[in-house]
């Protein structure tokens, strides 16, 4: 005969809080929570006491006051009478501008360098290795300063372009590299340019539609339409034809030397170029390594299997190797984009007025609102990085190896 008996119901003792695994985790969590709350309460109490001693209050009212400083590069209208808030927006736009430019340039440089590092050409391989090691092992701040120095101290002043025997001349008569920045032609939007722009957009859509149709036809019937030249033709031809039909609505405004400086055209500040180019070649070195690792991660058997099926080499690259390599390349690529955005805060070292230079620089110094400014600055960067990582997660999930 067997007797079933429940285990004796132990009564709760205080020592079980630390010795019993069922309760111990609650104890630890409670302790952690208490410590965190205590630390924050302590910091908050100090803050309140310090602010009261200094006679300050926390508030963002200062953002609506006039900023009283000029910004040398603005994407939207801005004068020194605009509010601090508008100055911050100008800064945000400048941050996004330089990050965007640097991301694209870095990707191009990185992909080229990464592919060349795998080239069968010994000399090119070694050169790219030197490029990658050189840029990865020296701080980006030094690169920014070096390129900024080239822009400001080495390039000629605008008046070197003057006169009969000028010491410097413009490239193609259109580009002038001076110590105040790069001057290049600006497009002038004449009447009819809106139509031209919409035709261009339409032809871009046309290319996409054509390629979709060709793919569908290939999958449905097995008939392969040519992809390369029709895409190029659809992309360029209509715009070119209409450009002349409409009587050249878009003209270029060339920079010209008038007075002490160049007038007309677009001026790109030396600080923007330094920041843009330095971020691009610095991060390009990292991207090159990612690209190389990604391509090397695709096993050789894949290439060989595709070749044994009779697929041509460039199609092997496009249809077999790249889709698998991209799965490895994209996640670090996106975190490199994030790094570019964060590193663009180094603009303050060369005087480019991004958000760190406006909100975290001059506004902070003028108003003395250190806590508010730094907090807003951090929140801005936090929002950007959360947005980028959200996009990255969506993408990662969509290309993830689907195993069943």
């Amino acid at each position, binding site marked *: 005969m067997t007797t079933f008996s429940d285990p004796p119901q132990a009564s709760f003792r205080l020592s079980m809080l*630390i*010795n019993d695994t069922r309760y111990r*985790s609650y104890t*630890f*969590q409670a302790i*952690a*929570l208490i410590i*965190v709350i205590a630390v924050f309460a302590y*910091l908050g109490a*100090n*803050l309140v*006491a*310090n*602010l009261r*001693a200094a006679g300050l209050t926390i508030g963002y009212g200062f953002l609506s006051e006039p900023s009283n400083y000029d910004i040398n590069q603005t994407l939207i209208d801005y004068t020194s009478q605009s509010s601090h808030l508008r100055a911050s927006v100008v800064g945000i736009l400048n941050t996004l501008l330089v990050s965007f430019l640097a991301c694209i340039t870095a990707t191009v440089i990185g992909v080229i360098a990464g592919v060349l590092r795998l*080239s*069968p*050409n*010994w*000399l*090119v391989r070694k*050169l790219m290795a030197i490029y990658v*090691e*050189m840029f*990865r*092992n*020296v*701080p*980006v*701040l*030094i690169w920014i*300063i*070096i390129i900024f*120095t080239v822009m400001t*101290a*080495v390039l000629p002043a605008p008046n070197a372009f003057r006169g009969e025997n000028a010491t410097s001349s413009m490239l193609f008569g259109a580009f002038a590299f001076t110590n105040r920045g790069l001057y290049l032609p600006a497009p002038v939007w004449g009447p009819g340019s809106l139509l031209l722009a919409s035709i261009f957009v339409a032809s871009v859509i046309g290319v996409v539609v054509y390629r979709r149709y060709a793919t569908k036809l290939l999958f449905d019937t097995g008939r392969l339409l040519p992809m390369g030249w029709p895409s190029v033709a659809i992309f360029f031809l209509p715009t070119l034809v209409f450009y002349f039909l409409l009587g050249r609505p878009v003209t270029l405004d060339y920079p010209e030397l008038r007075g002490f400086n160049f007038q007309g055209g677009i001026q790109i500040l030396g600080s923007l170029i330094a920041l843009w180019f330095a971020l691009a070649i610095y991060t390009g070195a990292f991207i090159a390594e990612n690209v190389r690792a990604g391509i090397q991660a695709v096993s050789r058997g894949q290439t060989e299997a595709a070749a044994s099926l009779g697929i041509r080499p460039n199609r092997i690259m496009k249809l077999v190797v790249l889709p698998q390599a991209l799965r490895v390349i994209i996640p670090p690529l996106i975190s490199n984009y994030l790094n570019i955005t*964060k*590193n663009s*805060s*180094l603009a*303050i*070292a060369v005087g480019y007025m991004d958000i*760190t230079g406006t909100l*975290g620089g001059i506004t*902070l110094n003028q108003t003395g609102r*250190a*806590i508010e400014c*730094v907090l807003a*600055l*951090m929140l801005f*960067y*936090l929002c950007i*990085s*959360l947005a980028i990582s959200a996009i990255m997660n969506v993408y990662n999930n969509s290309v993830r190896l689907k195993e069943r």
Partner: protein
Amino acid sequence: MSDTHQHSIPFVRDTMLPEIEPPGAERGIVKWMRTNLFSSIANGILTLAAIVAVYSILSGVVPWILNGVWDAPSIRECREILQGNVGGCFAVLTERWTQLLFGFQYPNEIYWRPALAFLLLFVAIAPILFSKVFPKQMLIFTGLYPFVAFFLIWGGSILTPIFAFLGFVAGYLIYSRLVQQSFAAGFFGGVIAAMLFWWVTSFLPVEGLIAIEAVPSRLMGGFMLNLILGTVCVSLSIPFGIALALGRQSDMLIIKWICVVFIEFIRGVPLITLLFVASVVLAYFLPPGTNFDLILRVIIMITMFASAYIAEVIRGGLAALPRGQYEAGDSLGLDYPQAMRLIILPQALKISIPGIVNVAVGLFKDTTLVSVISMFDLVGMIRGPVLASTEWNGVYWELLGFAALLFFVVCYGISQYSQWLERQLQTDHR
């Protein structure tokens, strides 16, 4: 019929022919160039382009270095010596190298102290870096090194580092007494004991007792500052990073979320904003009247920054371990701290070595950002006092090249070491 064959001369060669050299195009440098440089037309064009690029760079740089002036008191004299020829003015380095290394305020007559601390650094990390070559006993010096280095660089009374060290000893004694009971009791007991010891000794009047010349940290600068920030922050951030990574992997929801919020917040903002916090905001959060060293505030912020990144690297290492390793720990009856210490962390850390080194190199490079909050590290020295001086205004390439070279040597050395270490630690057979 068959005898014709019997009497015919057998066509069997009984001596080997001597080997013939491969054709000229298939051997030696020609073959190498054909396969490596000119395997196709496109490759040939690439090679020529590369040669042109290399030539144009070298033709600019080589005369600049060879013609360099190493001995002149100012840039004008440099130019006079050069007389319009291409050449670098490296005299700025010979003239100002102590400033570039130690900052412009560190007292000249005691440069030997940080230099000695720097040399001892190699003695201290040698048994960690090359554990198979150097005897285990050297680790004792490694443990003592932080206190020795502090004493050498900051000076002051020798009792300060000794008390700091004794605090750790007291903590360790309590820990080893209590750890048999449970790891948690030992750990917290040890921490509390050390804190108590330091709190008590902080009341002792040690000012000027058995002291050498004290140097306040605002006088530190140059490459020394980069090295101090780099080594201190990396070594501090590894334990914090491990703790954060374990916290993020933990089942305890509150602890997990504290770690997640901390890591994501720190990783989401640029280091510059954290340095702004250190320089302008942190003072508001400290008790009224306290005056923290700026260097100490910066060390705190950079350590927080680095530990968030290292935590993510180690989390990757933890996630890469097969589940079986965790289950093995459970089935042996090990509790959480034991399983972590004996099974999980050694393997996870081994996987994370490349990532940790990456973070360390990145962090060391990022120490140059302190020049933005007007501290005179190497970059700050170059941009500030040296380039602004009337003697050397305009010597950009030499100074920036010197800075780039210093960082390159250190960072490249570290990354080469980590690759070597990875090969050493490869214990699996593939």
